[in-house]
């Protein structure tokens, strides 16, 4: 990784008696694409708005390129921002929208024309310069908003749930497009989203936030495979959380509904204590598995066909476990009520503290 470009230094934000962001510490490298991921109300948008300068932190500092910008107004920070609602100026054409930042900065007409032309090319709307926002689709409007934000060559790009208002198909194609443009320009980017798929597919690193705190910072792979907390594990990806009783912590054995299983990673706890164990649906398969695999006897409770995968729910005693299998025309999915054995690798079993809830 390169040098740190944007620092959010121990920032806290309170509105009256309620604290919405607590001691957030994030260092972002130059050219890095970082997502803030979390449920609504987790403080991710407030953090972004503090970087933009719309809110001032109660305590802490924000530094861009080594310069303390905490007390600078938004229009002095050299940032580009894209909003969920596009926020294009309705009285201006696409070209005028893109030119706005250059115009207020006093750029020459020739320079503006050239830059607008270039930006229209980058967002692949070269013929749309003369249109008004209401004549464009949502996806096109958001591309224009991106071009408008980037036209002034900001040092940081902030995107606040930019795809939430769009259709599923456009969302996926725009994801790739935004990421490609970001890579090409090498611009340091913060992307706020509540959609884990978006965060996982686009980011260099993800900051998972909850209740104003940073839960985990890491690469998408780390976040998904090695969740550091129960919140991260359950928020990112689908997860089955089950209560299990510790049999012998040093040997890594537990008892799940009377069936014995063992975990690949170390954990601690007195024998007989109930802990939560988590499993991702894709880690479980039907069949006996390899020699080292955990096996559970279960009964098929439901079968849901989701296209490329089939999600099967099996029941062991009182617990439902979800598992995913690929849809293959040669092997039919199991039938409801069928008795099956499922297996999973001990390394895929995550032992979390505390008993399972809900």
């Amino acid at each position, binding site marked *: 990784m390169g040098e740190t470009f944007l620092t959010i230094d121990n920032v806290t934000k309170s509105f009256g008696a309620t604290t919405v962001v607590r001691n957030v510490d994030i260092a972002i490298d130059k050219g890095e694409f970082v997502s803030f991921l979390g449920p609504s109300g987790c403080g991710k948008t407030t953090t972004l708005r503090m970087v*933009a*300068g*719309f809110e001032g932190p109660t305590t802490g500092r924000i530094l861009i390129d080594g310069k303390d910008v905490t007390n600078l*107004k*938004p*229009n*002095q*920070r*050299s*940032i*580009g*921002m894209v*909003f969920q*609602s596009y*926020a294009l*100026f*309705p*009285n*201006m*054409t696409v070209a005028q929208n893109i030119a*706005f*930042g250059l*115009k*207020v*900065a006093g750029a020459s007409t020739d320079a503006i024309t050239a830059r607008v032309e270039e930006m229209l090319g980058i967002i692949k709307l070269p013929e749309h310069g003369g249109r*008004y*926002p*209401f004549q464009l689709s949502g996806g096109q409007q958001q591309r224009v*908003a991106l071009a*408008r*934000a980037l036209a*002034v060559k*900001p040092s940081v790009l*902030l995107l606040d749930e930019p795809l939430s208002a769009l259709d599923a198909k456009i969302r996926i194609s725009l994801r790739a497009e935004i990421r490609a443009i970001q890579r090409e320009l090498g611009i340091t980017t913060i992307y706020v989203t509540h959609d884990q798929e978006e965060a996982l597919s686009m980011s260099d690193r993800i900051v998972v936030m909850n209740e104003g705190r940073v839960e985990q910072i890491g690469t998408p792979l780390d976040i998904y495979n090695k969740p550091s907390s129960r919140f991260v594990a359950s928020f990112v990806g689908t997860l089955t959380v089950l209560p299990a009783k510790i049999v012998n912590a040093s040997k890594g054995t537990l008892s799940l509904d009377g069936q014995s299983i063992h975990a690949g990673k170390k954990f601690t706890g007195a024998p007989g204590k109930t802990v939560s164990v988590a499993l991702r649906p894709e880690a479980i398969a039907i069949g006996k598995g390899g020699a080292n695999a955990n096996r559970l006897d279960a009964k098929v409770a439901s079968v849901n066909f989701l296209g490329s995968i089939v999600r099967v729910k099996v029941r062991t005693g009182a617990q439902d476990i979800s598992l995913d299998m690929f849809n293959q025309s040669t092997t039919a999915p199991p039938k409801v009520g069928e008795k099956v054995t499922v297996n999973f690798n001990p390394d895929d079993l995550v032992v979390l503290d505390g008993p399972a809830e809900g």
Partner: protein
Amino acid sequence: MTDAAISDPAAGRSAPPAGARSLNLPTQWLGVAPFFLFALMFLILPTAYLVLGAFQNDQGEFTLANIYALSQPSILAAYWISIRISLASALLGAFTGLAIAVAIVRGGLPNWVRSATMTFSGVASNFAGVPLAFAFLATLGRLGLVTVLMNTLFGVNIYAYGFNILSFWGLTLTYLYFQIPLMVVIITPAIDGLKKEWGEAAATLGATTWQYWRMVVIPVLWPSFLGTVILLFANAFGAIATAYALTGSSLNIVPILLYAQIRGDVLHNPHLGYALAFGMIFITGLANIFYIWFRTRSERWLK
């Protein structure tokens, strides 16, 4: 016309014979016939009758003499003072109303200020006519509370300074009592329509508050603002009850002149009365045509 028949689902259902199709047409229009009949009989024809009368002499022949007769000094003066009062009360009302609307929407005032203002504006914009004149006589008339208080507290006799409630400024000040609230009622939703994100986007792009207002807010609000100014103008231009109750017939504005003409043919020429009425429609109509022209010409971004 054929659109109606085609868009009717019944018409396409079973390819009816030609007779049925032509029968279908009037039934489509039967639903709106009472409205059009009403509008024709009680809105359009009476107006058209006056407009035609303005271009006819006693023998029913076409003439421009009535229109020409409007140019006599007393009538021209009446039009001129009417236009001035309407324009002054419309513009002052519009800018003051806009300032109040901006203050209650964007000024960071508590919520009750906004709801109280909106409720009061709804009432005051409909509080016109004779009672309004009474209220202003009780306030700024020779014995009005403000007049008396100014005199006893500050020793200022506003009437000695040339103020008169029965004057251009007196009437304008009175008209503002319904003009300002009408502006507030109409323009507040338009200000609500300004998205907060526009301001934030402009700020991140380096714009100052003034640049944001000049390049986004004013152009966006302009059509509704201008439209409301025209409405306020027409509102004041046709108003008679307040002026009549306030001034009797001492202030020679067009509606009062027309009122006197209808009651007693003071101009001694019925067709000149028609011309007077035509002149009023012409001016309010012209204002509206200007507005429509302006809107279609400069506001291509409006859906």
